[in-house]
Protein backbone atom coordinates (compact mmCIF):
# COMPACT_ATOMS: atom_id res chain seq x y z
CA UNK A 1 0.00 0.00 0.00
CA UNK A 2 1.30 3.42 -0.94
CA UNK A 3 2.11 5.89 1.80
CA UNK A 4 -0.70 8.31 2.28
CA UNK A 5 -1.27 11.29 4.44
CA UNK A 6 -4.16 11.32 6.87
CA UNK A 7 -6.81 13.96 6.37
CA UNK A 8 -8.41 15.84 9.21
CA UNK A 9 -12.13 15.20 9.49
CA UNK A 10 -14.70 16.56 11.87
CA UNK A 11 -16.43 13.74 13.71
CA UNK A 12 -19.90 12.88 12.57
CA UNK A 13 -22.66 13.17 15.12
CA UNK A 14 -25.34 10.54 15.64
CA UNK A 15 -28.73 11.81 14.46
CA UNK A 16 -30.91 12.43 17.47
CA UNK A 17 -33.36 9.69 18.39
CA UNK A 18 -35.28 10.96 21.33
CA UNK A 19 -33.67 12.80 24.16
CA UNK A 20 -30.80 11.48 26.14
CA UNK A 21 -30.52 11.57 29.89
CA UNK A 22 -26.82 12.45 29.91
CA UNK A 23 -26.04 15.74 28.25
CA UNK A 24 -23.36 15.87 25.59
CA UNK A 25 -22.67 14.85 22.05
CA UNK A 26 -22.72 11.39 20.55
CA UNK A 27 -20.53 10.53 17.59
CA UNK A 28 -20.45 7.81 14.97
CA UNK A 29 -17.23 5.79 15.25
CA UNK A 30 -15.43 4.75 12.08
CA UNK A 31 -15.56 0.99 11.70
CA UNK A 32 -14.08 -1.84 9.71
CA UNK A 33 -16.20 -4.94 9.38
CA UNK A 34 -14.96 -8.13 7.85
CA UNK A 35 -15.80 -11.78 7.71
CA UNK A 36 -13.88 -14.96 7.90
CA UNK A 37 -15.63 -18.28 7.29
CA UNK A 38 -16.26 -18.72 11.02
CA UNK A 39 -16.35 -15.20 12.41
CA UNK A 40 -17.58 -11.70 11.87
CA UNK A 41 -15.13 -9.06 13.10
CA UNK A 42 -15.89 -5.43 13.86
CA UNK A 43 -13.16 -2.89 14.58
CA UNK A 44 -14.20 0.58 15.77
CA UNK A 45 -12.20 3.72 16.58
CA UNK A 46 -13.37 5.13 19.87
CA UNK A 47 -10.59 7.32 21.26
CA UNK A 48 -10.98 8.19 24.94
CA UNK A 49 -13.08 5.15 25.81
CA UNK A 50 -11.71 2.74 28.39
CA UNK A 51 -12.55 -0.94 28.27
CA UNK A 52 -15.01 -0.83 31.16
CA UNK A 53 -17.04 1.93 29.53
CA UNK A 54 -18.04 -0.05 26.46
CA UNK A 55 -21.56 -1.42 26.26
CA UNK A 56 -22.42 -4.08 23.71
CA UNK A 57 -25.97 -5.09 23.12
CA UNK A 58 -26.98 -7.90 20.82
CA UNK A 59 -30.65 -8.58 20.40
CA UNK A 60 -31.66 -10.95 17.66
CA UNK A 61 -29.64 -9.55 14.77
CA UNK A 62 -29.42 -6.02 16.08
CA UNK A 63 -26.06 -5.01 17.49
CA UNK A 64 -25.48 -1.75 19.33
CA UNK A 65 -22.07 -0.58 20.45
CA UNK A 66 -21.81 2.28 22.88
CA UNK A 67 -18.69 3.83 24.34
CA UNK A 68 -18.73 6.39 27.10
CA UNK A 69 -15.93 8.94 27.35
CA UNK A 70 -14.78 10.75 30.44
CA UNK A 71 -14.57 14.52 30.81
CA UNK A 72 -12.33 16.07 28.14
CA UNK A 73 -10.43 18.27 30.56
CA UNK A 74 -8.75 17.64 33.87
CA UNK A 75 -9.76 19.44 37.03
CA UNK A 76 -9.05 23.14 36.93
CA UNK A 77 -8.39 23.23 33.19
CA UNK A 78 -10.01 25.65 30.79
CA UNK A 79 -10.19 25.26 27.03
CA UNK A 80 -8.15 27.74 25.04
CA UNK A 81 -8.61 26.54 21.49
CA UNK A 82 -10.92 23.72 20.52
CA UNK A 83 -10.67 21.94 17.21
CA UNK A 84 -12.53 18.77 18.00
CA UNK A 85 -15.37 17.86 20.29
CA UNK A 86 -15.48 14.90 22.57
CA UNK A 87 -18.49 12.81 23.32
CA UNK A 88 -19.78 9.28 23.51
CA UNK A 89 -19.79 6.92 20.57
CA UNK A 90 -22.71 4.92 19.33
CA UNK A 91 -23.47 2.80 16.32
CA UNK A 92 -26.09 0.23 15.41
CA UNK A 93 -25.86 -2.63 12.97
CA UNK A 94 -28.12 -5.27 11.59
CA UNK A 95 -26.08 -8.40 11.29
CA UNK A 96 -26.65 -10.55 8.27
CA UNK A 97 -25.71 -13.83 9.83
CA UNK A 98 -26.69 -15.32 13.14
CA UNK A 99 -24.20 -14.87 15.95
CA UNK A 100 -23.50 -17.19 18.82
CA UNK A 101 -24.25 -14.98 21.83
CA UNK A 102 -22.01 -17.00 24.12
CA UNK A 103 -18.97 -16.62 21.84
CA UNK A 104 -18.31 -12.93 21.51
CA UNK A 105 -14.86 -11.63 22.30
CA UNK A 106 -14.35 -7.92 22.80
CA UNK A 107 -11.04 -6.19 23.40
CA UNK A 108 -10.29 -2.53 23.79
CA UNK A 109 -6.79 -1.26 23.12
CA UNK A 110 -5.50 2.26 22.51
CA UNK A 111 -9.02 3.48 21.86
CA UNK A 112 -9.80 0.78 19.31
CA UNK A 113 -12.54 -1.75 19.95
CA UNK A 114 -12.25 -5.16 18.38
CA UNK A 115 -15.23 -7.43 18.42
CA UNK A 116 -14.96 -11.01 17.26
CA UNK A 117 -18.29 -12.72 16.83
CA UNK A 118 -18.65 -16.38 15.97
CA UNK A 119 -21.28 -17.36 13.50
CA UNK A 120 -23.92 -19.90 14.32
CA UNK A 121 -24.31 -22.90 12.11
CA UNK A 122 -27.58 -22.63 10.32
CA UNK A 123 -30.20 -24.91 11.73
CA UNK A 124 -30.14 -27.98 9.58
CA UNK A 125 -33.33 -28.70 7.65
CA UNK A 126 -35.29 -31.43 9.27
CA UNK A 127 -37.31 -33.92 7.42
CA UNK A 128 -40.65 -34.68 8.91
CA UNK A 129 -42.14 -37.94 8.02
CA UNK A 130 -45.82 -38.30 7.78
CA UNK A 131 -47.01 -41.53 9.23
CA UNK A 132 -49.78 -43.32 7.57
CA UNK A 133 -52.39 -44.19 10.11
Amino acid sequence: MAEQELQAKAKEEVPAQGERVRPGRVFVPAVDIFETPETLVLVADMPGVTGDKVTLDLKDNHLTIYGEVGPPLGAGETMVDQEYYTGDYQRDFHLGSLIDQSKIEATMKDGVLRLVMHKVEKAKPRKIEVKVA
Partner: protein
Amino acid sequence: MPIFFREPAWNPLRELEQLQRRMNRLFQDTYGPERVPWRAGVYPLVNLSEDKDHLYVRAELPGVKAEDLEITLQDNNLILRGERKIPAEDKQVNYHRRERESGFFRRIVALPAQVKGDKVEATCKDGVLTVKMAKPEEIKPRKIEVKVA
Protein backbone atom coordinates in the same frame (compact mmCIF):
# COMPACT_ATOMS: atom_id res chain seq x y z
CA MET B 1 -70.91 20.31 27.04
CA PRO B 2 -68.40 21.71 29.50
CA ILE B 3 -65.24 23.33 28.21
CA PHE B 4 -62.21 21.52 29.53
CA PHE B 5 -59.61 23.86 28.30
CA ARG B 6 -59.72 27.07 26.44
CA GLU B 7 -57.22 28.08 23.84
CA PRO B 8 -55.68 31.48 24.52
CA ALA B 9 -56.76 34.16 22.15
CA TRP B 10 -54.84 34.14 18.91
CA ASN B 11 -52.02 36.64 18.98
CA PRO B 12 -50.33 37.31 15.64
CA LEU B 13 -47.39 39.03 17.31
CA ARG B 14 -46.53 36.01 19.35
CA GLU B 15 -46.55 33.86 16.30
CA LEU B 16 -44.09 36.22 14.65
CA GLU B 17 -41.85 36.05 17.67
CA GLN B 18 -41.93 32.28 17.54
CA LEU B 19 -40.99 32.32 13.88
CA GLN B 20 -38.08 34.62 14.58
CA ARG B 21 -36.80 32.33 17.31
CA ARG B 22 -37.00 29.35 15.03
CA MET B 23 -35.15 31.14 12.25
CA ASN B 24 -32.43 32.17 14.66
CA ARG B 25 -32.05 28.59 15.83
CA LEU B 26 -31.83 27.38 12.24
CA PHE B 27 -29.06 29.81 11.40
CA GLN B 28 -27.20 29.06 14.59
CA ASP B 29 -27.36 25.35 13.93
CA THR B 30 -26.13 25.74 10.39
CA TYR B 31 -23.54 28.47 10.57
CA GLY B 32 -23.07 29.05 14.28
CA PRO B 33 -19.59 29.24 15.79
CA GLU B 34 -20.31 25.95 17.52
CA ARG B 35 -20.78 23.86 14.42
CA VAL B 36 -17.43 24.09 12.70
CA PRO B 37 -14.81 24.06 15.38
CA TRP B 38 -11.84 22.98 13.33
CA ARG B 39 -9.79 25.54 11.56
CA ALA B 40 -6.43 23.97 10.84
CA GLY B 41 -7.68 21.10 8.72
CA VAL B 42 -4.53 19.15 9.37
CA TYR B 43 -4.55 15.75 11.01
CA PRO B 44 -4.61 15.36 13.95
CA LEU B 45 -7.06 17.94 15.22
CA VAL B 46 -5.90 19.24 18.59
CA ASN B 47 -7.47 20.86 21.59
CA LEU B 48 -5.40 23.34 23.55
CA SER B 49 -6.20 23.94 27.19
CA GLU B 50 -4.51 25.34 30.25
CA ASP B 51 -4.61 25.40 33.99
CA LYS B 52 -2.68 27.55 36.41
CA ASP B 53 0.73 26.01 35.78
CA HIS B 54 0.44 23.96 32.61
CA LEU B 55 -0.52 24.02 28.98
CA TYR B 56 -2.10 20.91 27.48
CA VAL B 57 -2.31 19.79 23.89
CA ARG B 58 -4.63 16.85 23.23
CA ALA B 59 -5.23 14.89 20.08
CA GLU B 60 -7.30 11.82 19.28
CA LEU B 61 -5.06 9.17 17.78
CA PRO B 62 -6.83 5.84 18.11
CA GLY B 63 -4.64 2.83 17.47
CA VAL B 64 -1.41 4.83 17.22
CA LYS B 65 1.38 3.25 19.20
CA ALA B 66 3.78 5.32 21.27
CA GLU B 67 6.74 4.17 19.17
CA ASP B 68 5.10 5.46 16.00
CA LEU B 69 4.81 8.95 17.44
CA GLU B 70 7.43 11.64 17.23
CA ILE B 71 6.92 14.78 19.26
CA THR B 72 9.33 17.69 18.92
CA LEU B 73 9.40 21.06 20.58
CA GLN B 74 10.88 23.82 18.47
CA ASP B 75 10.80 27.36 19.80
CA ASN B 76 7.15 27.75 20.64
CA ASN B 77 5.95 25.20 18.16
CA LEU B 78 4.98 21.69 19.02
CA ILE B 79 5.49 19.28 16.16
CA LEU B 80 3.45 16.10 16.04
CA ARG B 81 4.54 13.51 13.52
CA GLY B 82 3.72 9.91 13.24
CA GLU B 83 2.00 7.14 11.47
CA ARG B 84 -1.23 5.39 12.04
CA LYS B 85 -0.81 1.78 11.06
CA ILE B 86 -3.65 -0.61 10.65
CA PRO B 87 -2.26 -4.12 10.87
CA ALA B 88 -3.18 -6.24 7.89
CA GLU B 89 -5.75 -8.92 8.56
CA ASP B 90 -5.57 -12.43 7.38
CA LYS B 91 -5.60 -12.91 3.58
CA GLN B 92 -8.86 -14.86 3.80
CA VAL B 93 -11.03 -12.07 5.11
CA ASN B 94 -13.59 -10.20 3.07
CA TYR B 95 -14.57 -6.69 3.97
CA HIS B 96 -18.06 -5.32 4.46
CA ARG B 97 -16.92 -1.87 5.48
CA ARG B 98 -13.61 -0.15 5.58
CA GLU B 99 -13.87 3.31 7.09
CA ARG B 100 -10.80 3.48 9.29
CA GLU B 101 -7.89 5.16 7.61
CA SER B 102 -4.19 4.64 7.95
CA GLY B 103 -1.35 6.89 6.95
CA PHE B 104 1.16 9.35 8.24
CA PHE B 105 0.67 12.78 9.72
CA ARG B 106 2.72 15.84 10.49
CA ARG B 107 1.41 18.89 12.18
CA ILE B 108 2.76 22.00 13.83
CA VAL B 109 0.84 23.43 16.73
CA ALA B 110 1.75 27.00 17.63
CA LEU B 111 1.83 27.38 21.39
CA PRO B 112 0.78 30.67 22.95
CA ALA B 113 4.06 30.83 24.87
CA GLN B 114 7.55 29.46 24.90
CA VAL B 115 7.73 26.40 27.14
CA LYS B 116 10.75 24.71 28.56
CA GLY B 117 11.70 21.52 26.77
CA ASP B 118 12.64 19.65 29.91
CA LYS B 119 9.22 20.22 31.43
CA VAL B 120 7.17 18.45 28.80
CA GLU B 121 5.40 15.15 29.34
CA ALA B 122 3.57 13.21 26.69
CA THR B 123 1.20 10.36 27.44
CA CYS B 124 -0.96 8.28 25.15
CA LYS B 125 -3.93 6.69 26.86
CA ASP B 126 -6.93 5.03 25.23
CA GLY B 127 -6.01 6.58 21.92
CA VAL B 128 -5.80 10.13 23.23
CA LEU B 129 -2.44 11.86 23.24
CA THR B 130 -1.88 14.44 25.96
CA VAL B 131 1.17 16.68 25.94
CA LYS B 132 1.55 18.48 29.24
CA MET B 133 3.88 21.47 29.31
CA ALA B 134 4.89 23.61 32.25
CA LYS B 135 4.16 27.27 31.73
CA PRO B 136 7.11 29.60 32.03
CA GLU B 137 7.08 31.95 34.98
CA GLU B 138 6.54 34.99 32.79
CA ILE B 139 3.06 34.04 31.67
CA LYS B 140 1.75 32.71 34.96
CA PRO B 141 -0.96 34.86 36.46
CA ARG B 142 0.48 37.51 38.73
CA LYS B 143 -1.23 39.79 41.13
CA ILE B 144 -0.61 43.42 40.50
CA GLU B 145 -0.93 45.73 43.38
CA VAL B 146 -2.26 49.19 43.01
CA LYS B 147 -0.10 51.69 44.74
CA VAL B 148 -1.71 54.51 46.58
CA ALA B 149 -0.11 57.72 45.48
